[in-house]
């Protein structure tokens, strides 16, 4: 850890090599404004975590990054959002979701075999060559730290796996199409500490493959895992900085109050 970083006001907001970049991004559910002028950059091959109380907008922001909110009626986005400098909001939505994968709070395996779950993304993208699919399934399950547990029962239904295994399967399924960004919305909140640790370890490992953005209620998870942490409150990004600065010496009083449990 570089001591010079501590307390430095440098915020990774305007990175030249940002993977994702938001500028003055606002979001509305009907007349309710859920996000207010969010500007930030997501650094490539890093883990960025968003924390904040329920309803603060962190999940809304995450879902905006792969246009998941569009399926809701009467919603509206304002401002800029770019992926590698390209306008993400104007991009073909299928392309966005192939490049930006998502894993949800509740594991949601398809009612198919373990193999078919992981192969699903490749097949809908037109890849049917068996050797290629098999190789991708093994590789993805290995990255998701699940391969050794399931390699002898790939044809068993995915729903028979434990909760932690199902969540790792969902991560494997997302990784199979080699996304450039992986978004995770509370991926461990339904898991026990051991299953949580496995997910955290695998996320740390796959940083080299993809850029990770995680929303978590668990501040310690953000502290352990993330390179950068953003604190959302009432639809605003209060503070965004190096994780160690955020948890050791935050610049904003609201951040300090939230992470020390003195809120409200």
């Amino acid at each position: 850890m570089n001591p010079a970083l501590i307390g430095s006001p440098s915020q990774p907001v305007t990175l030249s090599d940002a993977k994702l970049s938001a500028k003055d991004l606002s979001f509305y559910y009907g007349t309710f404004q859920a996000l207010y002028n969010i500007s930030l950059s997501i650094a490539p091959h890093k883990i960025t975590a968003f924390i904040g109380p329920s309803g603060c907008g962190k999940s809304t922001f995450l879902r905006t990054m792969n246009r998941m909110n569009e399926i809701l009626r009467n919603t509206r986005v304002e401002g800029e959002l770019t992926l590698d400098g390209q306008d993400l909001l104007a991009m073909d939505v299928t392309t966005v979701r192939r490049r930006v994968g998502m894993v949800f709070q509740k594991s949601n395996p398809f009612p198919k075999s373990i193999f078919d779950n992981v192969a699903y993304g490749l097949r809908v993208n037109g890849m049917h060559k068996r050797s290629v699919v098999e190789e991708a399934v093994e590789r993805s399950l290995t990255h998701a730290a699940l391969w050794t547990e399931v390699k002898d029962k790939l044809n068993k239904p995915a729903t028979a796996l434990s909760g932690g295994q199902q969540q790792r399967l969902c991560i494997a399924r997302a990784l199979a199409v080699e996304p450039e960004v992986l978004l995770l919305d509370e991926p461990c909140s339904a898991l026990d500490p051991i299953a949580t640790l496995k997910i955290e370890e695998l996320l740390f490992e796959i940083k080299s493959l993809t850029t990770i953005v995680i929303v978590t209620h668990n501040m310690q998870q953000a502290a352990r895992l993330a390179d950068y942490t953003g604190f959302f409150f009432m639809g605003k990004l209060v503070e965004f900085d190096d994780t160690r600065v955020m948890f050791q010496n935050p610049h904003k009083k609201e951040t300090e109050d939230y992470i020390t449990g003195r809120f409200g």
Partner: protein
Amino acid sequence: MSALVETAVYRSVQGVVEKNEELAQQVLKNEARINQLEIEIDDMAIGLLALQAPLAADLRLITAAIKINNDLERMGDLSVSIAESAMALVREPVIRPSIDIPHIAALAQGMVRKALDAFVSRDSELARSVLASDDAVDNLRTASYHELTSFMENNSSQIPQALRLLTVVRNLERIADHATNIAEDVLFLVKGIDVRHHNEQRAPVASG
């Protein structure tokens, strides 16, 4: 850090015993490095506390490391003080009161080495042996105090040198105290017990 401080203690004592100004100079030169390491080690420890929420043995290791770090830096300062005395004594006429600085120094250095070895090897028996030596050093310091007092009464022209030797003895005794602190921290680290201030029974967390 441990090696640098151990070396500083050794060199400062040799500076006094051998009237070696060069060794004393090296102690002064290395002080900045020790101070820098103190900052870096604390920074690393605080980062681990802030981000990893360590528990049980991990928590004891980090809190022990922070305290030991502090004791080591203080020993570094005391070595500097001894080295400064050494450099002054080189320029002054030799006096020969019957105090055994090499013996006190050997005891104190032995305690430092054992305390640090006990930390590295998590050896609670070795740590306890350090605690047992502290009284011997204290007794030698008291004896030296009396000896130097009567020496000064009889040799009033040599009071400055005698005072310097008294300072050296006192600093060695302080170094032994810091070694004792480290040994106590090792016992806390390995056994989870707090033996400070002669309380053998105290457990850090009330059980039952």
